[in-house]
Each structure stands twice: as structure tokens, then as C-alpha cells.
């Protein structure tokens, strides 16, 4: 009995918290505290689990006491416990951000009071997917997080959210059905769904059957992870959701898909059937994603496209199937969860401060709010891979792994990765130049909120225009006085700041983190520690 056998609590606690938050739906203040407290406790527990697993290898918990391989099993190995910690840390920051927003805007009694319970269910689903030791439990984890995400995506039920929500639901349901078909076929072929058991039995099937099952799983997970050409749903649906929801989706949901792809490639099908296909998919994901980002005129949509593009880096590392490649991928996932989420959170703040997220209508924010500018600048440079930051270290690791691989296709990918990185820098710098650096007067058709607070724009006239407009009625609560800036709630700023600091800390502590990633990659490629933890040391 060790602390790691408490790992299933990472699923149970958020569920209990969600139930409690549902009961407290009429007391938003207590509800916020309950959900924040639940996530904080979960995070603390996961840190302990990670510390234990780091010391003594993977731990399997057999729920209900059924002997393996028959019962439901939850496995915490280095990779999954690392992802648990980072995902809980990020979702805690986003929850604080959302709570700050809710407290500032006064959501009492509104439809948004379902946000907290649904959010906790989403977190439980993500944890369940990371801990699942069998395919069907992984499917259930996916369904929990997806169902919660349907609700979060369509919060408020406005026209654009419903439109985006329908596409999102249909695509997700189709990918889940494909996954379920894959499970049925795998069960038909092997008679088991326990991952560790499958790792042994799938290898005994004939080559054609293996390939069929493999490609079914890859397509199902490829849709969830938004790998080109299965990625078109993402930039369409994410940007319409509320800012905190987009932030947590961008950080976590696609990474669960990537996690499933990594498990498929290392544990279930270690033979390199589709490595070349994956490399092509990675290359096209990187390039098509970032070229899409170049064309966008809205910060949120632009960030959604960069999200797709950077999924390509992770697939690149997986396709190399070397320890270095996999370690760099794990490091990159951790980096990307943190950075992409903080960028979306900053965009939410920009939208509050400037009234819009359309790039052409913003300007001069660096002068108006230097803190906001710094909060954007650091993660933006981090994402583009500028040297001292973790983005650079992660990409460097991937490039080294690519060069070490030495095949012509790997070199093509190395070139593609560098090109995508430079284009990311271009996209990020363009937003910086327009939204933050140029003066407010240069903005085309600037938003009334921005004009009302900008000292260098023709303030007097627009203030009068603003006061007579209907817009100010809706936002009056945000103006403390005539010329005061719209309030950026402290809790929103601090939670964003916290995540940006975490991103910088990933660069400072990159050494130990990379070592941990390497250990996780070693264990996953060796496969035996995982299988032995589930089936007992005597297993082949």
C-alpha cells in the first residue's frame, strides 16, 4: 500500500467536487471555493503520486480487487502521472481565471452556474483517460471529457456557439464511434481490452489484422488530437467558446488524443507499421496549421491554428520512435499545455481590455497596459522557440532526435519543423506589432471600449459617442468612472501571471524535467515495466 495506490482519487475527487458544486448552484461564492479547493487537493495528491512513481516505477491499481487481466485497472506510470500533474495545475489556473471572470461580471443565477460542476467533470474525464489501464476505460474517459466539453462549448447558447457546437459534437461522436469500432474488433481478435495484456497478445496476430487495428486506432485518436488531415474541426469550433473554456480545451483536450496516440505507438503496436505515414502527417500538420494561422484576422482563431500546427511537433517525435524523440515529445507536450493555455488566457484579457479579439481593431495595448503586454510577450516568444525558453529546448530536442534518426524523411521533417517555428514567430510578432506596439490611432475601426480608454486617440468625441451608444449600457459595470479603464479582475490577471511564470519555470527547470521525460520515454519503449506492473512480474 503506497501513496500511488490513491491515484484513482484523481478521478473520484473531481467527481465528488462536481456533485457538491451542483448542489451549491445557488451559492456561486461557496461553489467557486468548493471547486477551487477540490482541484487544489487533487493537484497535491497527484504531485505525491508523481514523486512516488518517479522513485519506484509504474504502479497499477486493480479496482474492485479483480485479478489481472480481468478487472478494471488504473495505471500510473511516469508519463501519465507527469501529465496528470501538469493538466491539474493548468486546469486549476484556468478555473481561478474563470472564477475571477464570474465574480467580476456577476453571474449569480445565470446559466453560467453550471460551469463549475461541468468543468470538474471535464477534469475527471481527462484524469480518467490518463490513468486508464484498459481500452474501454480510455473510451469512457474520452466520453466523460467530451460530454462535459459539449456543454462548455455551447454555454449560453448564442448563435455562433450553437453553430460551432454542432460541428464539434458531430465530429467528436464520429471519432468516438470509430474508437468503439476499433475496441470491438480488438476484443474480437484478442479477447481482452486490458492494455498490458493487449501489448502481449496483439503481437501474436497476423500482420494484416495488426495493421487494420492499428490504423483504426490512429484515425480515431488522430481526429481527437487534430492531426492533419483530420484537424479541420478545431479552428472552426474552439474560438467561439468563452475565453476560459477555449483556454482549457486548447491546453488539454488535444493532448489527451496525443497521449492515446503515444500509448498506441509504444505499448500496443511497437512495430513501425505507420511511422512514415505519421511523419508525413506531422509535416503537413505543422505546415498547413501555421499557414492557416497566417491568414487569420482574429487572435483566437490564429491561436487555434498554431495549436494545430504544434500538434505536428508531437507527432514528429512519436514517429521517430527513439528514446530521444519520445522524451522530447513528452517535454514538448508539457511545455505546450502550459504555453498554449496561457496565450488563450491572455487573449481573454485582451478581449476585456480592448473590447474585441479582431487584430485590425486593436492597437496601443503595450502603452495602455504594460503588464498585459508582458503577459503576451513571454509566452508568445516561448511558443515561437526563442532560445532561453522551454519552447526552444523542446524543439531543439526534437531536431536532435530527427538528425540522430538520419533517414531522409527525418531530415525533411527537421527542415519543416524549423520553417513552422519561424512562421510561428512571424505570426506572433504580427499580433505583437499590431495589437500591442502600434498606437491606438493606427487601429482600423477601433473598438469603442479601446477608444474610450486610450489617451492618444481622439478621446473626447468618442467618449461622448460611447456614452450615448447602447454598448456602454451593457458594460457600464466595468467602468468605475468616466475615464477609468475597464477593470481587469485581479484574479484573472494573477492566474494568467501564475501560468506564465509556470511556463518560465519549465525553462529554468528544464534539466530535471527533461531527465524525467527521458526516464518516462525509456520505460515506455522498454514496455516491460508497464506490463509487469499490471500483470505481475512473472508476465512474459
Amino acid at each position, binding site marked *: 500500500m503506497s501513496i500511488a495506490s490513491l491515484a484513482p482519487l484523481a478521478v473520484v475527487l473531481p467527481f465528488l467536487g462536481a456533485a457538491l458544486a451542483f448542489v451549491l448552484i445557488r451559492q456561486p461564492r461557496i461553489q467557486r471555493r468548493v471547486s477551487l479547493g477540490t482541484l487544489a487537493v487533487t493537484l497535491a495528491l497527484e504531485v505525491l503520486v508523481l514523486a512516488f512513481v518517479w522513485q519506484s516505477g509504474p504502479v497499477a491499481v486493480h479496482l474492485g480487487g479483480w485479478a489481472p487481466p480481468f478487472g478494471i485497472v488504473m495505471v500510473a506510470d511516469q508519463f501519465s502521472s507527469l501529465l496528470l500533474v501538469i493538466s491539474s495545475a493548468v486546469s486549476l489556473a484556468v478555473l481561478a481565471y474563470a472564477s475571477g471572470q464570474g465574480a467580476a461580471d456577476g453571474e449569480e443565477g445565470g446559466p453560467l452556474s453550471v460551469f463549475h460542476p461541468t468543468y470538474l467533470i471535464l477534469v475527471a474525464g481527462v484524469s480518467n483517460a490518463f490513468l486508464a489501464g484498459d481500452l474501454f476505460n480510455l473510451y469512457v474517459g474520452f466520453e466523460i471529457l467530451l460530454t462535459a466539453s459539449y456543454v462548455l462549448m455551447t454555454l449560453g*447558447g448564442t448563435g455562433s456557439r*450553437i453553430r460551432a457546437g454542432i460541428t464539434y459534437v*458531430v465530429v467528436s461522436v*464520429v471519432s468516438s464511434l470509430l474508437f*468503439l469500432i476499433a475496441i470491438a474488433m480488438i476484443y*474480437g481478435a484478442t479477447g481482452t*481490452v486490458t492494455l498490458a495484456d493487449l501489448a502481449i497478445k496483439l503481437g501474436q496476430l497476423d500482420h494484416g489484422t495488426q495493421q487494420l487495428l492499428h490504423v483504426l486506432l490512429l484515425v480515431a485518436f488522430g481526429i481527437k488530437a487534430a492531426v492533419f488531415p483530420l484537424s479541420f474541426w478545431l479552428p472552426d469550433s474552439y474560438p467561439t467558446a468563452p475565453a476560459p473554456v477555449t483556454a482549457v480545451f486548447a491546453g488539454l483536450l488535444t493532448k489527451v488524443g496525443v497521449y492515446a496516440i503515444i500509448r498506441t505507438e509504444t505499448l500496443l503496436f511497437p512495430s513501425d507499421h505507420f511511422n512514415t505515414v505519421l511523419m508525413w502527417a506531422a509535416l503537413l500538420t505543422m505546415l498547413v496549421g501555421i499557414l492557416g494561422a497566417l491568414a487569420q484576422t482574429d487572435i483566437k482563431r490564429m491561436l487555434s491554428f498554431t495549436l494545430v500546427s504544434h500538434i505536428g511537433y508531437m507527432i514528429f517525435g512519436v514517429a521517430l520512435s527513439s528514446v530521444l524523440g519520445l522524451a522530447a515529445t513528452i517535454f514538448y507536450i508539457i511545455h505546450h499545455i502550459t504555453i498554449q493555455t496561457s496565450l488563450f488566457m491572455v487573449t481573454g484579457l485582451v478581449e476585456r481590455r480592448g473590447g474585441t479579439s479582431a487584430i485590425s481593431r486593436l492597437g496601443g495595448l503595450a502603452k495602455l497596459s504594460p503588464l498585459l503586454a508582458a503577459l503576451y510577450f513571454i509566452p508568445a516568444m516561448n511558443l515561437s522557440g526563442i532560445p532561453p525558453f522551454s519552447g526552444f529546448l523542446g524543439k531543439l530536442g526534437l531536431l536532435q532526435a530527427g538528425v540522430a534518426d538520419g533517414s531522409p524523411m527525418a531530415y525533411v521533417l527537421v527542415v519543416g519543423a524549423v520553417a513552422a517555428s519561424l512562421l510561428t514567430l512571424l505570426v506572433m510578432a504580427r499580433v505583437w506589432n499590431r495589437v500591442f506596439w502600434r498606437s491606438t490611432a493606427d487601429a482600423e475601426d477601433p473598438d469603442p471600449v479601446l477608444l474610450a480608454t486610450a489617451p492618444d486617440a481622439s478621446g473626447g468625441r468618442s467618449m461622448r459617442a460611447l456614452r450615448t451608444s447602447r454598448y456602454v449600457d451593457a458594460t457600464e459595470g466595468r467602468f468605475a468612472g468616466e475615464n477609468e479603464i475597464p477593470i481587469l479582475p485581479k484574479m484573472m490577471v494573477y492566474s494568467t501571471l501564475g501560468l506564465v511564470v509556470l511556463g518560465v519555470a519549465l525553462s529554468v527547470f528544464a534539466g530535471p524535467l527533461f531527465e524525467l521525460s527521458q526516464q518516462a520515454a525509456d520505460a515506455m519503449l522498454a514496455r516491460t515495466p508497464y506490463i509487469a506492473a499490471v500483470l505481475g512480474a512473472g508476465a512474459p
Partner: protein
Amino acid sequence: MSVNLTLLLIMGVLYAIGIYLLLERSLTRVLLGLMLLANATNLLLLATGGYDGLAPIFAKDIPATAYNDPLPQAFILTSIVISFAVTAFMLSLIYRSWLLSRADHIQDDREDRRVATQELFDAEEDSEIAIEVSDFHENNQPAGSREMIPEVTLKKAAVHHAVKEGGE
């Protein structure tokens, strides 16, 4: 392992109709398609359970091979519950969509259309040379240094201005 041919045929037909409906633009048909696909998948899961057998209730004197495999049925039960919830949610989305737009089909993404129809010429980015020329001239350099700027650049800037004005 023997499989019931009738069930397999029904499964195939359900998949075919389901995919056909899924590709329609009408939301209700898409939903019906998803429901058919979910049921076809349930039949597939059932087929993996193998031949008919006794209900899996343990009794000492019955050999293990005589029972039916209960696991696929547990899978199906879970999958039915999930597709039930998703169907209910989809129905509410479709109803909401109908309330908002009075139409039962998937709406266009307006922002996407806007991005697609934007001009190739970007005033801020592509006419940068012209802007820098004037800054350079007015702020830092004495008059007359303008001659140092190559003629080609100026022409290009003039063309861009013409394009911009023509577009408006």
C-alpha cells in the same frame, strides 16, 4: 466462433444508411445518421461476443465454455447510455439552432468566409516601404536625403497606394 449472419447484414445496412444520412446538410438527418451508426456499432460489439450461450450466471456444475461472454454486453450497455445522452444533447442543440435561425441545416462559418474573401493586399504589411520612407524623411534626416532612396522603391510604393485607393 460462429456469427449470426442476419445481425451482420443488418449491421452493414445500418452503417450504410447512417453514413449516407451523416453527409446530409440537414441537422435532423445528421442526428438520425449518428443514431444508426451507434446502433450498428452496438451490433458489432455484440458479434464479438461469439456464439449463443447460457446467461453468465455462475453455477458450479456448468463448464465455463457454456456461458455467453458477458463483457461485450457490458460494453453495449455503456455505449447505449452514452449515445442516449449525446442524442438528447444534440436534439437540444438542434432545437436551439432552429429557434435562432429557423432553419434545420448547418450554418456557414461567417468568420471563415471573411478570411477567405479578404484582399491579398494588406495595407499595413505590404505598403510598409512607403510608410518607412516618410518617417525616415520627416523625423531623422535633413530634406534632400530623399534622393538616396532608389527610384524602384518609390514606384512600388506609389503602385501600392494606387491599388489601395482603387480597392476602396
